[in-house]
């Protein structure tokens, strides 16, 4: 099926199952331990051995020699694989660095060996016996140092064209002429996905055929890239990943666990299971790259933006991509004169890549503080300032409308609900005992993407509808919304639908990423269900256009037949793929929201704690309000982490993330998160898909950190432009209370 004209009325619009807050259909399996995660697949292949991956001790350089004799002769060891005996390996199209190092080392903790042994303990112990002679090379690890000479990055696929800044109008002239201007630089740190489940794989060979039970968000990408890396035919590889303990983009790609498990299994001649240890997770894998963002805004005294410039610099390994932190700035606010660009420095830190809402999450951390600063300069309320600069058309391509854009309503509804009018516009002037209280707002914005997505649907003789697609559920609720879609389309209750996900033998889907999974994969299921309905109608000799599927029956005119009767002659199977036309070119498809946050800052210690949070989201039809809300509150929690604590600390001498465990890399705990309220505007966007639904899982993160930052500023009067906003960044500038203590600067004295 191709979606190339706006959706008309369709069976989904009945919203008997879709749009209803159902519990997760997989919830009972997860809460009873019946949902097997990759490392728990004890049953799938007998005789599993354990693999332990050794990571590089240096960030850049090469291996002069690698001595594995001691490890190989250690008790219980079955095989040791390094570059020296792995055979020739390719590199996945989605990987920047090789997943097995050697002799070149591209980043810290890049895998240099796997030890396979009878027990995990034996493998781990033997890995420590591998002696690697490294020769350190010269690397670049400091983004701030590299930024001034970082070249512009071109989004053009034709790399022969010189990269240029994205210009509309005459930014320089308009900015120079603007009566009110802001020119500020913001930084965001490297961040880790820090998902609960580490990378894990069980690999088993049968002759030249390989099966991996793994934890991966994008089955088709893993399938392609593992086959390419190992140099095997795709038809000889099966990838299975039905349950995933979180990913946030960290599991979009083939990673070392799968490659090393496959190599270890081949060398040992037995199935091998590998889980990456937590301290390896931070430098071995991908991360959200740090950014340095310069934003310039010019406005009339009335608060109309006349000029916007946003230049973001990030770093990555050679041939890596930038953090596209300026993406939203092209679309979010009107301003006739615009200058936008991305610079990319070469850094030899671990590979930077997508983490939840890549681009917008980082970009809005900066842009939405800038908007807050500008509102203050203008003497305007930050909500009103955003509303004044709303646009209903693509600011870079006037006349190209948004498919649906209710940002103003998100802001207005949120302001009313949050009692925004009680906010004191004078920062640092609201107290509750020893706490400084502040309120902040930020816009949420994230584009909606559609990705080709297929599914197979079968109606069994028992009347059960089974959906098969390689779509994944990374904790988001894919199982549930896909079941809801099939139930709605086929007119059966939810418990008459079985959903099977995450297997490369199923039709290729969108996978989970870029908040495109829900809308795209359910559209693929929709397409397959349309085909199945046609096949059933044909079987029953009725016109499919007239057939109504409801209550387990097919009704056509006066005729009403049980679904089960349609399959007397055997099950009926239909498969289809949703392809997308040009509606995304005709209309800009985006999702919108507004985040409101109240914080308390301890006037003594500067500690920041969030007291209230509200998100108002406009993202088309909400397929399941319960799982959607879970997505948004999880995202808001992640936003609090980004605002207040998450930072991969870079050792710029040795080139690695130092705080590489969950004690050092802090993410919010329950005690950090207050009551969170989420409101979805009642929408249905007919330009995006037959489901009329857009992504929500990343929208919920976009802008949260800036709303927290703006609330902190409102509380303290101290503007912090470098994330995370930790207490040391504002401690000594906090308002009066403490100055009465006349602190002598003992630190200065100590020097």
């Amino acid at each position, binding site marked *: 099926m191709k979606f190339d004209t706006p959706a008309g009325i369709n069976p989904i619009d009945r919203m008997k199952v879709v749009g209803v807050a159902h519990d997760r259909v997989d919830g009972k399996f997860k809460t009873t331990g019946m949902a097997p995660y990759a490392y728990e697949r004890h049953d799938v292949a007998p005789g599993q051995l354990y693999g332990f991956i050794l990571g590089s001790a240096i960030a850049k350089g090469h291996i002069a020699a690698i001595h594995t004799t001691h490890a190989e002769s250690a008790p219980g060891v079955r095989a040791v694989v390094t570059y020296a005996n792995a055979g020739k390996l390719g590199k996945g199209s989605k990987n920047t660095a090789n997943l097995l190092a050697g002799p070149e080392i591209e980043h810290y903790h890049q895998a240099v060996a796997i030890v396979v042994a009878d027990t995990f303990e034996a493998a781990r112990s033997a890995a420590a016996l591998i002696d690697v002679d490294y020769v350190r090379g010269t690397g670049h690890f400091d983004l701030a140092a590299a930024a001034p000479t970082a070249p512009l990055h071109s989004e053009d696929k034709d790399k022969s064209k010189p990269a240029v800044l994205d210009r509309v109008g005459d930014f320089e002239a308009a900015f120079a002429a603007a009566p009110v201007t802001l020119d500020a630089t913001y930084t965001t740190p490297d961040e880790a996905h820090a998902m609960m489940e580490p990378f894990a794989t069980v690999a088993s060979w049968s002759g030249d055929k390989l099966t991996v039970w793994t934890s991966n968000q994008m089955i088709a990408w893993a399938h392609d890239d593992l086959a390419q890396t190992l140099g095997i035919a795709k038809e000889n590889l099966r990838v299975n990943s039905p349950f995933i303990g979180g990913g946030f983009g960290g599991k979009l790609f083939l990673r070392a666990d799968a490659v090393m498990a496959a190599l270890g299994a081949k060398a040992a001649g037995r199935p091998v299971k590998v889980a990456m240890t937590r301290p390896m997770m931070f430098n071995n894998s991908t991360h959200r790259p740090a950014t340095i963002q310069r934003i310039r805004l010019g406005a009339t005294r009335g608060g109309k933006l006349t000029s916007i410039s946003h230049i973001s610099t990030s770093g990555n390994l050679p041939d890596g991509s930038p953090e596209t932190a300026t993406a939203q700035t092209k679309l979010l606010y009107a301003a006739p004169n615009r200058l936008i660009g991305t610079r990319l420095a070469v850094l030899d830190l671990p590979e930077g890549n997508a983490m939840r809402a890549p681009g917008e999450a980082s970009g809005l951390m900066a842009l939405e503080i800038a908007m807050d600063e500008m509102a203050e300069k203008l003497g305007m309320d930050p909500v009103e300032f955003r509303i004044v600069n709303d646009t209903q058309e693509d600011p870079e391509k006037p006349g190209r409308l948004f498919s649906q854009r209710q940002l103003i309503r998100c802001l207005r509804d949120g302001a009313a609900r949050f009692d925004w009018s009680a906010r004191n516009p004078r920062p640092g002037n609201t107290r509750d005992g020893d706490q400084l209280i502040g309120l902040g707002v930020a816009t949420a914005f994230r584009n909606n993407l559609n990705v080709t997505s297929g599914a197979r649907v079968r109606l069994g003789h028992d009347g059960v509808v089974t959906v098969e697609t390689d779509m994944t559920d990374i904790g988001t609720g894919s199982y549930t919304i896909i079941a809801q879609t099939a139930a709605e389309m086929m007119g059966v209750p939810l418990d008459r639908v079985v959903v099977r996900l995450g297997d490369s033998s199923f039709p290729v889907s969108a996978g989970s990423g870029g908040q495109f999974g829900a809308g795209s994969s359910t559209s693929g299921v929709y397409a397959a269900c349309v085909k199945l309905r046609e096949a059933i109608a044909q079987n029953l000799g009725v016109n499919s256009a007239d057939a109504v599927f409801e209550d387990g029956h097919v009704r056509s005119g006066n005729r009403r037949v049980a679904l089960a009767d349609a399959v007397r002659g055997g099950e009926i199977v239909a498969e289809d793929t949703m392809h997308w036309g040009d509606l995304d070119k005709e209309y800009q498809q985006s999702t919108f929201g507004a985040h409101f946050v109240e914080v308390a800052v301890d006037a003594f210690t500067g500690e920041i704690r969030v007291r209230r949070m509200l998100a108002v989201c406009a993202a088309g039809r909400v397929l399941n309000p319960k799982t959607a809300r879970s997505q948004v509150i999880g995202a808001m929690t992640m936003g609090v982490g980004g605002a207040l604590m998450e930072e991969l600390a870079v050792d710029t001498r040795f080139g690695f993330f130092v705080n590489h465990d969950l004690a050092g890399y802090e993410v919010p705990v329950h005690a*950090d998160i207050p009551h969170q309220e989420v409101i979805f505007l009642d929408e249905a966007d007919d330009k995006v898909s037959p489901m009329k639904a857009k992504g929500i899982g990343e929208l919920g993160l976009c802008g949260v950190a800036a709303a927290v930052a703006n609330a902190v500023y409102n509380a303290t009067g101290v503007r912090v432009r470098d994330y995370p906003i930790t207490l040391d960044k504002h401690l000594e500038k906090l308002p009066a209370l403490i100055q009465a203590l006349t602190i002598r600067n003992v630190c200065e004295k100590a020097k």
Partner: protein
Amino acid sequence: MKAFTYERAKSPAAAAAAVAGQPGAKFLAGGTNLLDLMKLQIETPTHLVDVQDLKLDRIEPTADGGLRVGAFVSNTALAADARVRRDYAVLTRAIVAGASGQLRNKATTAGNLLQRTRCPYFYDTNQPCNKRRPGSGCAALGGYSRQLAVIGTSDACIATYPGDMAVALRVLDAGVETIDAHGAARTILLAEFHHSPGDTPHLETALAPGELITAVTLPPPVGGHHVYRKVRDRASYAFALVSVAAIIQPDGSGRVAFGGVAPKPWRSDAADAALPEGATAVTARAFADARPTADNKFKIALATRTLAATIAQARPA
């Protein structure tokens, strides 16, 4: 983790003898720190002597009106003890500010005193660390040091003692009772229990090889207002950037110890004496010899402000 042998000791003296008699042997109590470090091969004992059967799990009054806390009393049990909550509230407050409920159920009084630094370079066996591998150097110097110590450090080590409980014990003038391989008992004042790093940061305590902690003693209650204030980036389950344990009397005098700033709980008589003058006077003395890094110099101002909050809490205006 390296392969090791394991035994369960039958008496404190036997446990001490077992460890003293075997190079590479260590005591195992709750294991909440040691086992993690063994998995990372930061600790590589060849033999573990488990002390869980030694019945060192009682809290009992002492003749002088204090309390003796058995070495194996869990953090949870110690914090919940009615006598501790009434007479040594700073201790309860410090314990519950640390770790998590699960860890406190498992962690012991003696083991907690011996928990090792959380310096990230200590935790990464690819990096030089004089504490982990004597003589290899200190990667934290000139590296990422936001969490690390500002005072009491040396050119060999700037690691922080990470615990909370010991900071309260320091302000309570606790003692550490031990027994050695020959059955000889002694008491080490907590003030002298943790060593400064000097040139030997791997030697962290006054314990001799094989010397087993049997109890922690608390002197008779001193009254006053007990406060433990722990400052951290997130609300729970994080090590202190700075913590303050204070006992403040109605007249403004009292005692104060700082955590998160030094290789041991940090307290001085001169700083205590300045308490009636306020927080600034105290920290000017307590941190007079501080040698912070650019990353962690904020801790000194933070210590002052945290103490100010503590005093305000103890003596509302």
